[in-house]
């Protein structure tokens, strides 16, 4: 058997390995996080293991992946937890095994982690709905296109948005439509527009939902009647923002979070202290402010 | 003497068919009562009613003088009534022992199977039939004949008062039949009543005490066996004289059409060579498992591990699949019409045109009218009894189903025709019609290969008789030299030298 010395006092391998465990590998949002992390890892010449369940409902798979990574003795883990309770135990296990864990995006129910980097999704949802209602004069029908249930960040955006909208008697909030992908979001929005010719606004909690919703609005020639506020900023969303189909984007900084996560991990490995909690700003991009350097930087993390 | 079972005024209809009309029957203790009738006369239906598989529309059943209700096979078994079904009814993935005792397993109070006892008991039952099958064998791996013997063993293992056997000998050869008859005599002696269905008149004469004759769903008479003969039985059953059962017409035998040289399948068939000429019937005889069906399958492109050469009209041909065989003008009526001969969920016409659909197509499009036309002609020519060409073949009687299979191959106008057990389970009248069809084939110069376990049939219809034993071709007899004895000698010849 090969000699393996685990734990903290491990032999310094020439190459550091970092696990990035996302909620679902089939989502471009997490791939942006990965790209940020990759940049940071490449800089120090390490190896990034990008992994996660195929679908974001598979929490047990995420737990298993954590266990497998711990068993394979990676040097640090970046985790976007699918469930705050379920992932607490694996996080504890990793930390006990001397592997620093950086939590990204959503909380876990333990204090035993290295750092927590996340935007407040409930607040983000509220902010997005506020943008939307402001632009339609706080009255009329609005719809929420959400992702499939079970993803904490999306769920929370929906919760925040609903919370805000319910403050206004004059706003009629239609039931949330949970959509698997862009095609489903497109169909759902088409059907909503059919049933509600007087629809005023749409909030899409994820990029695929935004694209589907925008397409439905364009197909029906309703871009002047229906306002769209959406999360994220993929190239298609940015284009639609430029074209005026989408009115505002609530932009998090996934790329930045990935990069920062690796930086923190490296620091922790070297015994340096890192901030326990970081809340990267959520930035609202509109057609008007797109060219502000600050906004431009989050819209195009790799440069235009 | 009180009758063991009486059935009074039984009526039964199926969609479009009156299967049974006012049938009354009494069964005496310790007798063998044969039920005789043409295909579709209603024999199986009547027996299924007694066994609780089907319910009569009206009528009553009495058991030892007492009016009883039979609503399920469980009910029937309570009165000791068991049935061996015409269609094989085994569970392919379970062992022989489990099949023999299915539903009556030896088990502990807690539901655990007592394997040892079950295997021992199974072995005993099999021994009674002189069978050497290992009770642990999975039924799937048995031949048709062995499966049939397992069904018989299953029936023997019950403590039946009334035992119904629906064509138990259709798939087995003389040896096993003799074994079966010995058992039947024993059962009789202990007071068990046997209801026996068969199309083989000789064995009917041999085994029965009385014969209950049916025609078109009605009872046409009951005869005491020792006061009658086969001619009378046929007359009663068919309603008229049918003449010679084997109406063989010797036609002129022409050139060789088909030749096999050194055909082998490792472990199954060994260096087999023979040929068939135009206008000739080459009969194939042999014991169960001799490999006749395997040989026919191989000739027809069904076995990849086959070696050897096949010549058609003296030209060497490659036959790797049934598709190749059909292209080379071959036709194959398989031994199991339900499994491999027919598409049971299709109507008659689509079955008849299956192998020759190109006759009714233009640019790959099917002309359904022409198809129906051809099928109707074929049905008329073969005298298929059915409401019309759209009737589902699954509802036809065995004889009519067999005619449909023949019809399918007649449509292809093939030059070489293989018939494997062409009259299995078929009544005398239909048998005779099939023999007439075979005559028609030889007259038209076709080469016919006929596998049969019915030696009189082989003797009555062949020009030459090939005999297989354990995968070896032990001889080919000209018809003049062939008889029961010479065939059996070759069929039992030890090939291990």
């Amino acid at each position, binding site marked *: 058997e090969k000699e393996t010395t685990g734990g903290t006092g491990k032999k310094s391998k020439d190459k550091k390995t970092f696990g990035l465990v996302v909620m679902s*590998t*089939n*989502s*471009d949002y997490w*791939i942006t996080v990965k790209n940020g992390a990759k940049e940071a890892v490449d800089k120090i010449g390490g190896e990034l293991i990008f992994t996660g369940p195929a679908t974001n409902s598979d929490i047990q798979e995420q737990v298993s992946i954590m266990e497998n990574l711990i068993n394979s003795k990676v040097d640090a883990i970046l985790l976007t937890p699918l469930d705050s309770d379920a992932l607490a135990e694996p996080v504890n296990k990793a930390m006990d095994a001397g592997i620093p864990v950086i939590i990204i995006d959503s909380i876990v129910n333990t204090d035993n982690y290295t750092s927590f980097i996340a935007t407040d999704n409930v607040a983000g949802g509220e902010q997005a709905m506020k943008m939307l209602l402001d632009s339609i004069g706080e009255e009329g029908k609005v719809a929420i296109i959400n992702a499939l*249930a079970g993803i904490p960040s999306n769920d929370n955006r929906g919760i925040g948005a609903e919370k805000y909208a319910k403050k206004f008697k004059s706003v009629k909030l*239609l*039931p*949330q*439509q*949970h959509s*698997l*992908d*862009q*095609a489903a979001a*497109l*169909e759902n929005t*088409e*059907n909503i527009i*059919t*049933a509600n*010719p007087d629809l005023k606004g749409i909030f899409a909690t994820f990029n695929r939902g935004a*694209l*589907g919703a925008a*397409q439905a609005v364009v*197909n029906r020639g309703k871009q002047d009647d229906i306002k769209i506020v959406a999360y994220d900023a*993929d*190239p*298609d969303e940015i*284009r639609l923002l430029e074209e005026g189909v989408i009115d505002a984007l609530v932009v998090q900084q996934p790329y930045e979070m990935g990069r920062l996560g690796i930086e923190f991990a490296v620091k922790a490995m070297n015994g340096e202290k890192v901030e326990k909690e970081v809340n990267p700003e959520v930035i609202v991009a509109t057609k008007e402010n797109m060219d502000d350097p600050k906004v431009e930087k989050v819209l195009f993390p790799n440069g235009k | 003497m009180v009758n063991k079972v009486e059935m009074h005024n039984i009526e039964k209809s*199926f*969609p*479009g068919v009156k299967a049974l009309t006012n049938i009354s029957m009494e069964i005496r203790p310790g007798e063998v009562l044969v039920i005789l009738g043409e295909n579709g006369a209603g024999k199986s239906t009547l027996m299924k009613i007694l066994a609780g598989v089907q319910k009569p529309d009206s009528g009553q059943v009495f058991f030892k003088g007492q009016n009883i209700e039979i609503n399920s096979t469980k009910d029937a078994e309570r009165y000791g009534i068991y049935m061996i079904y015409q269609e094989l009814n085994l569970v392919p993935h379970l062992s022989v022992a489990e099949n023999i005792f299915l539903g009556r397993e030896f088990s502990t109070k807690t539901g655990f199977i007592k394997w040892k006892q079950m295997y021992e008991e199974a072995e005993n039952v099999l021994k009674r039939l002189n069978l050497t099958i290992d009770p642990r064998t999975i039924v799937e791996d048995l031949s048709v004949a062995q499966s049939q013997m397992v069904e018989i063993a299953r029936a023997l293992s019950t403590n039946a008062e009334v035992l119904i056997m629906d064509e138990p000998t259709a798939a087995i050869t003389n040896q096993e039949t003799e074994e079966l008859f010995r058992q039947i005599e024993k059962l009789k002696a202990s007071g068990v009543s046997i209801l026996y269905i068969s199309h083989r008149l000789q064995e009917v004469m041999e085994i029965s005490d009385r014969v209950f004759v049916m025609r078109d769903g009605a009872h046409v008479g009951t005869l005491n066996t020792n006061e009658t003969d086969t001619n009378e039985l046929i007359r009663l059953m068919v309603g008229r004289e049918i003449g010679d059962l084997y109406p063989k017409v010797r036609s002129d035998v022409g050139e060789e059409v088909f030749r096999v040289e050194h055909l082998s399948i490792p472990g199954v068939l060994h260096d087999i060579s023979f040929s068939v000429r135009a206008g000739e019937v080459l009969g194939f005889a042999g014991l169960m498992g001799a490999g006749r069906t395997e040989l026919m399958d191989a000739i027809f492109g*069904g076995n990849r591990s086959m070696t050897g050469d096949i010549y058609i009209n003296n030209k060497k041909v490659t036959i790797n*699949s*049934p*598709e190749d*065989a*059909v*292209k080379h003008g071959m036709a*194959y009526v398989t031994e199991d019409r339900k*499994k*491999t*001969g*027919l*598409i*049971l*969920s*299709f109507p008659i016409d*689509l079955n008849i045109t*299956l*192998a020759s*659909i*190109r006759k009714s*197509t233009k640019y*790959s*499009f*099917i002309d359904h009218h022409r198809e129906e036309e051809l099928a109707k002609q074929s049905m008329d020519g073969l005298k298929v009894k059915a409401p019309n060409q759209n009737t589902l073949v699954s509802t036809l009687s065995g004889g009519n189903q067999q005619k449909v299979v023949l019809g*399918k191959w007649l449509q*292809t106008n093939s030059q070489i025709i293989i018939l494997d057990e062409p009259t299995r389970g078929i009544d005398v009248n239909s048998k005779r019609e099939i023999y007439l069809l075979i005559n028609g084939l030889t007259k038209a110069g076709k080469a016919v290969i006929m596998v049969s376990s019915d030696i009189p049939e082989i003797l009555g219809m062949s020009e030459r008789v090939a005999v297989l034993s354990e995968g070896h071709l032990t001889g080919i007899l000209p018809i003049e030299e062939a008889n029961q004895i010479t065939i059996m000698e070759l069929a039992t010849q030890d090939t291990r030298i």
Partner: protein
Amino acid sequence: MLKKYGPLIILGILMIILSFASPYFLTTNNLTTVAIQTAVIGVITIGQLMIIVTGGIDLSLGSILAFSSVIAAMMLKSGTPLIVCLIVAILIGAIAGYVNGTLVTKFKIPAFIATLGTGEILRGSALIITNGLPVSGLPKSISVFANGKIGFIPVPIFVFALLAIIFQVMLSKTLIGRHVYALGSNVEATRLAGINVGQRTRMVYMFAGILAAIAGVLLLGRLTSAQPTAAMGYELDSIAASVIGGASFLGGVGTAWGAIVGAFIITVLKNGFTLLHVNTFFQQAATGFVLVFAVYLDMIQRTKRRGSKKKV
């Protein structure tokens, strides 16, 4: 007759209820939307139906769609002419389907496993080549497959209808169709009748692959981008549609147009629920219920038909 029209009757009842429940349902506009929404899953369903008739099943159709449309989109983006991209997509669908058919017929791998496996392989490959990201920024011309019109008929509806007719005719009126039903009913008897059942089966899987690729092109037009994760779950939807439309897993039974009616039932249901503002969670539960109920009704009708025939 009831057997033939059973699913249609269910669809009819559904539509009548919905037209009373929502004033928006029975409008040309909405019905056109429903038809367009059905086109993608409908085209896939035609292929699935044919495979079910052979006694098989295909769990890779959604992945074939995703893989072929991702490739087509990447080529399109790099400036390849549209027609070439289309041909490549269809070729990929054909090859994938042919591989499925070969695994099933030559390697004797159960269709369920063979297609589950190839589905994972194709889905994984689509993710690998795109790095998990959608392929977007395609030339606008692609949206002709969603918004173009032939005469007054939208392109997706036209393509869908055309394919439906072609394959319904193929199944019911041609040699190949006859052979497919025959081998689905009794493969041994069909083989022994001299029909090359392996080749016929592979052909059907190939057709299904081609249809999935065409559905991918329609989806590409509709979304104007290609996702490696597209069409997940379309397999089960298309199977459900086929069975609602009268197909049987035992093979040998089912019609293309019945399956298409099944697909419409599913889409109309979704459309109706959204028009009526039903929460998605309720939608899911209710869809499950309708699924079981529709097949149950179809079952009774078939039994009834048998019954009435008995009386004749």
